[in-house]
C-alpha cells in the first residue's frame, strides 16, 4: 500500500518534471503565459508529491515495514524512534529521496518568489531546476529506488550505520548540508536562465546573489556541524581530516565564496560577467561531483555511502550539464562582452580579484589532491594516499593569504585609495595585531603558521569590528542615538554590508580556533587501573571505575573518570565505547569538558574485560569552542546579508514585463501580491 502510493508519487513527479521542463522552455520561446503557468503548476505539484513520498518513507520507517527495501536496509526494531526517523537520510536511497524533496522545495520557493518577474529568465530557470529534479527522480525510479519490494519481508533489520546513530548532530548536519548543496541549484538555474534569455541585468544579479547567500549560509553551517560531529564521534580529537567527502563539501563552498565577492565587482562596475557565471556553474558542478564522489564508492572515505550502480548515472549527468553549460557560455559570448575599467590598482576591486585568485587556486589544489590517488593509479598503477600532511602543506600559505585579505580588503575603498587613508585605517589594527602576536609568543606559541594566523586574525578582526564601531559612532554623533539603537539601525540600514562583516568575524574566529587547537594540541595516553591517574596540562585524570550496560540498540562500556585540577575535583567525564548490534567494532564516544579557552577531551581506547583497567587517551586543545561559535556567527551573518531589511524597491516596470500582451492583467495581479 505505502509502497504503491509512494512509487506512484515518484513516477508522477518524474512525469510532471519532464513535462514541466518542456512547457517552461516552450512557454519562454513562444512567449505563451499559459505554458509557463503550467510549468509553475508542475513545480508546485512536484513539491507536494515529494513531500508525500518522504512522509511515506518516514511512515514506513516508523512502522517498521520491512517489505520496503530501504527500511529493510536501515531499519531496526531496537533503534530509538528519533534515530529511526532521521535514518531517512542515513543511506544512499533515502538520501536521494530527501534530496529530491529539498530540491522540489527550493524550486517551489524560487518560482513562487520570482514568478512573473525577470521576463523569460524565470521560465528558463524553472526548466533548468525541473530538469535537474528529473535526474534525481530517474535515480529514484531506477537505481536508487527506496521503495522496492522485499519479499518475504524480514522480521527485523540491521539498523542504521552505527556511526550515524551515535550522535544527535547526525540529525542536523545532513539536512543543513542538503540545504546548502541543493540550494546551489537555484543560482545555477538563474545563470542558465540568464544566458538563455539574454537578461544579465542588475535584478538578475540581485536575485542570484541572494539565493547563493542562502545556500552558502546553510553550507557553511553544515560544514561546521560536520566538523563538530567528527570531533564528538570519531574519537581522535580532530575535526577535519581532509577526507575526500569533507573536501567535496568544501570545494563548492570555496567557489561560492569567490562568487559572493566578485559579484560585487559586477554589480558596481559591470565587469567579470563571464567569470561570475563560470563560478556559479562550477559551484553547481562541484556539488554534483561531491555527490558523485560520496555515492559512487570511487574514493575511500569514512563517510562514503555504500557503492552502487548509481555512479554511472551521475557521470552521465555531469557530462550533460558540463557540455550544456560550456556550450551556452561560449555561444552567448556576445552578451557577455564589456571591457573592464579600473581607476587604481590599490582598490577594493583588486582585492576582490586577488581573493578570487586565492579561492580558485585553493579549490584547484583540493580537487587535485582529492583525485590524485586516481591519477596515480591511472598513470603509475600504484595506490597512493593524499592526506592531511599534503593538504596542510599546500593550502596553509593560501589560507594565510586569505586571512590577510579579510583584514585588508574591507579597509580598501572602491575605485582608488586616497593618500593617507591606509595609515589612518590600519594604524589601530596594526597595533592590535602586534599585541596579539606578543601575547601568543608570551603564551608559548611557536608554530609559525599559528603565529601568522593569530596576527592576521587579530588585524582582520579589528578591521571588521571597527566597521561596526565607526558606523555606530557616526550615527550616534549625527542622529544623537544611544549606542545600542545606533548599532541596530546601522545594521538594518545596510544589512548586506554588515552581514558580510559579521560573516568575516565568524570565519576569523573559526580560523583562530583551528590554528590554536591544531598547534597547541597536547595528547597523552595511559592504561589506568581504578584509582590511578595521569596528568595532562595541569589536569589530573583519575579513573574511578568501569561499568557496562545494555541498551535496546547497543551495548555500552563506560569509564568513569574524575577530573581534578590542583588537587580539587572539577568534574567527571564518562568516555564510552558503544557496541551496536551486528558489529564488533566499537564506536568511540568521547567525553568532552568544553571551556572557552580549552577543551579536555577523553577517549576510552580499550578496557580489560574483567574491568580491572582502561586505556584512556586525553587531549587538551586550546580554543576549539571558537570554531563552533565562529561557524554559527558565519551562518547568522550570511542570513543577515540575505534578508532585505530595506523595503523592497519594487520597480513596477520590471515586474510588468509581459510574456504575451493578453496576460498583462494577470501579471500585474501577481506582482501586487
Amino acid at each position, binding site marked *: 500500500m505505502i509502497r504503491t502510493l509512494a512509487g506512484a508519487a515518484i513516477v508522477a513527479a518524474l512525469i510532471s518534471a519532464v513535462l514541466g521542463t518542456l512547457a517552461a522552455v516552450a512557454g519562454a520561446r513562444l512567449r505563451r503565459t499559459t505554458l509557463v503557468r503550467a510549468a509553475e503548476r508542475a513545480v508546485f505539484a512536484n513539491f507536494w508529491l515529494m513531500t508525500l513520498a518522504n512522509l511515506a518513507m518516514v511512515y514506513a520507517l516508523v512502522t517498521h515495514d520491512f517489505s520496503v527495501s530501504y527500511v529493510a536496509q536501515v531499519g531496526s526494531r531496537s533503534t530509538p524512534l528519533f534515530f529511526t526517523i532521521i535514518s531517512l537520510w542515513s543511506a544512499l536511497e533515502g538520501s536521494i529521496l530527501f534530496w529530491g524533496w529539498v530540491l522540489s522545495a527550493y524550486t517551489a520557493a524560487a518560482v513562487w518568489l520570482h514568478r512573473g518577474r525577470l521576463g523569460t529568465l524565470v521560465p528558463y530557470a524553472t526548466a533548468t531546476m525541473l530538469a535537474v529534479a528529473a535526474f534525481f527522480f530517474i535515480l529514484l525510479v531506477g537505481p536508487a529506488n527506496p521503495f522496492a519490494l522485499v519479499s518475504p519481508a524480514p522480521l527485523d533489520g540491521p539498523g542504521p550505520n552505527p556511526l550515524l546513530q551515535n550522535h544527535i548532530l547526525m540529525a542536523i548536519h545532513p539536512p543543513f548540508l542538503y540545504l546548502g548543496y541543493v540550494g546551489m541549484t537555484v543560482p545555477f538555474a538563474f545563470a542558465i536562465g540568464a544566458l538563455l534569455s539574454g537578461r544579465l541585468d542588475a535584478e538578475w544579479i540581485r536575485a542570484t546573489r541572494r539565493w547563493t547567500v542562502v545556500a552558502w549560509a546553510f553550507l557553511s553551517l553544515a560544514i561546521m556541524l560536520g566538523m563538530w560531529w567528527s570531533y564528538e564521534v570519531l574519537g581522535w580529537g580532530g575535526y577535519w581530516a581532509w*577526507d575526500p567527502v569533507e573536501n567535496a563539501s568544501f570545494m563548492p563552498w570555496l567557489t561560492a565564496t569567490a562568487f559572493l565577492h566578485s559579484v560585487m565587482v559586477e554589480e558596481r562596475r559591470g565587469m567579470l560577467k563571464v567569470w561570475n557565471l563560470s563560478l556559479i556553474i562550477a559551484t553547481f558542478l562541484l556539488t554534483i561531483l561531491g555527490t558523485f564522489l560520496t555515492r559512487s564508492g570511487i574514493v575511500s572515505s569514512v563517510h562514503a555511502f555504500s557503492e552502487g550502480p548509481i555512479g554511472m548515472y551521475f557521470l552521465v549527468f555531469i557530462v550533460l550539464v558540463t557540455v550544456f553549460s560550456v556550450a551556452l557560455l561560449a555561444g552567448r559570448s556576445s552578451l557577455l562582452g564589456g571591457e573592464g575599467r579600473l581607476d587604481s590598482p590599490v582598490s577594493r576591486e*583588486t582585492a576582490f*580579484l586577488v581573493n578570487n585568485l586565492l579561492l580558485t587556486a585553493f579549490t584547484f589544489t583540493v580537487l587535485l589532491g582529492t583525485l590524485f590517488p586516481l591519477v*596515480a593509479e591511472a598513470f603509475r598503477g600504484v595506490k597512493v*594516499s593524499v592526506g592531511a600532511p599534503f593538504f596542510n602543506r599546500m593550502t596553509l600559505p593560501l589560507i594565510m593569504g586569505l586571512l590577510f585579505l579579510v583584514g585588508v580588503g574591507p579597509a580598501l575603498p572602491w575605485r582608488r585609495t586616497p593618500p593617507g587613508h591606509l595609515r589612518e585605517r590600519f594604524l589601530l589594527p596594526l597595533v592590535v595585531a602586534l599585541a596579539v602576536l606578543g601575547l601568543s609568543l608570551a603564551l608559548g606559541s611557536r608554530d609559525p603558521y599559528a603565529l601568522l594566523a593569530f596576527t592576521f586574525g587579530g588585524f582582520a578582526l579589528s578591521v571588521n569590528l571597527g566597521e561596526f564601531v565607526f558606523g555606530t559612532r557616526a550615527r550616534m554623533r549625527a542622529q544623537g542615538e544611544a549606542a545600542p539603537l545606533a548599532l541596530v539601525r546601522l545594521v538594518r540600514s545596510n544589512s548586506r554590508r554588515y552581514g558580510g562583516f559579521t560573516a568575516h568575524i565568524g570565519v576569523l574566529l573559526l580560523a583562530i580556533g583551528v590554528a590554536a587547537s591544531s598547534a597547541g594540541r597536547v595528547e597523552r595516553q595511559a592504561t589506568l587501573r581504578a584509582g590511578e591517574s595521569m596528568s595532562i596540562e595541569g589536569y589530573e585524570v583519575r579513573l574511578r571505575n568501569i561499568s*557496562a550496560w545494555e541498551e535496546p540498540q547497543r551495548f555500552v562500556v563506560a569509564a568513569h573518570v574524575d577530573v581534578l585540577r590542583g588537587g580539587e575535583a572539577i568534574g567527571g567525564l564518562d568516555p564510552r565505547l558503544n557496541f551496536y548490534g551486528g*558489529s564488533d567494532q566499537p564506536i568511540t564516544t568521547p567525553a568532552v569538558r568544553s571551556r572557552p579557552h580549552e577543551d579536555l577531551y577523553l577517549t576510552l581506547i580499550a578496557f580489560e574485560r574483567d574491568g580491572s583497567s582502561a586505556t584512556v587517551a586525553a587531549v587538551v586543545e586550546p580554543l576549539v569552542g571558537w570554531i563552533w561559535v565562529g561557524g554559527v556567527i558565519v551562518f547568522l551573518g550570511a542570513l543577515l546579508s540575505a534578508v532585505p531589511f530595506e523595503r523592497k524597491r519594487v520597480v513596477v516596470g520590471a515586474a510588468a514585463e509581459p510574456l504575451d500582451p493578453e496576460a498583462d492583467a494577470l501579471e500585474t495581479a501577481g506582482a501586487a501580491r
Partner: protein
Amino acid sequence: MKTTRAPRIVATLLLGLIIQGIGGAADGAAAPQSAEQQRPGDGEATRGAADAALERRTSEVASGLRCPVCQGVSVEDSPTELARQMRGVVREQLAAGRTPDEVRAFFEDKYGEWILLEPKANGFNLVVYILPWLALLAGLGVIVIVVRRWTRPPPGEAPQPAQPVASSLEP
C-alpha cells in the same frame, strides 16, 4: 567488507561475557587508592621531559603515516591499538638512530606507498606538488596583465579625480 554480520546470538554471547567480567571486577575496585600508591601507567604516561624531542619527532613521522585499520586518519591521530603499536615502532627506530626517511621507508616496505599520507615528492608525484603553484602563478600573471590594461586611461579621456565613495554607503 571484511567483517561479516554474524548472528546476533554470537554478539550477545560475547557481550554477556563482558558484563559478567565487569560485574565481578567492580566489586573488587571499591576502595580507591591514594595517589602515592599508584602504579604508573604504561611507558607513555611516565616519559620524562628529556624525551620531548624524541616525542616530537615521533609524532612528526607518525602524522605522515596512514593508519591501516582506519579511514584516512594518520597513525598519530588514530586511537586504535595498531596505530599505538606503530607509534611505538616509530619511536623505537628513531631512538635507535634511524632517520625519519628510513622509518618511513620501513613502513612503505611493509604496506606499499599507500601508507604514506603525503605522496613522495619525486617522479610523477611532483605533478600534485607543482601544478597548484603553477596555476596560482598563471592566475597572478593574468591579474597583473588585466589590472594594468584596465587601469590604463582610455585615449582622449581625462583621468577621474579621486573620489572614494563614503564607506557607509557601500554594500
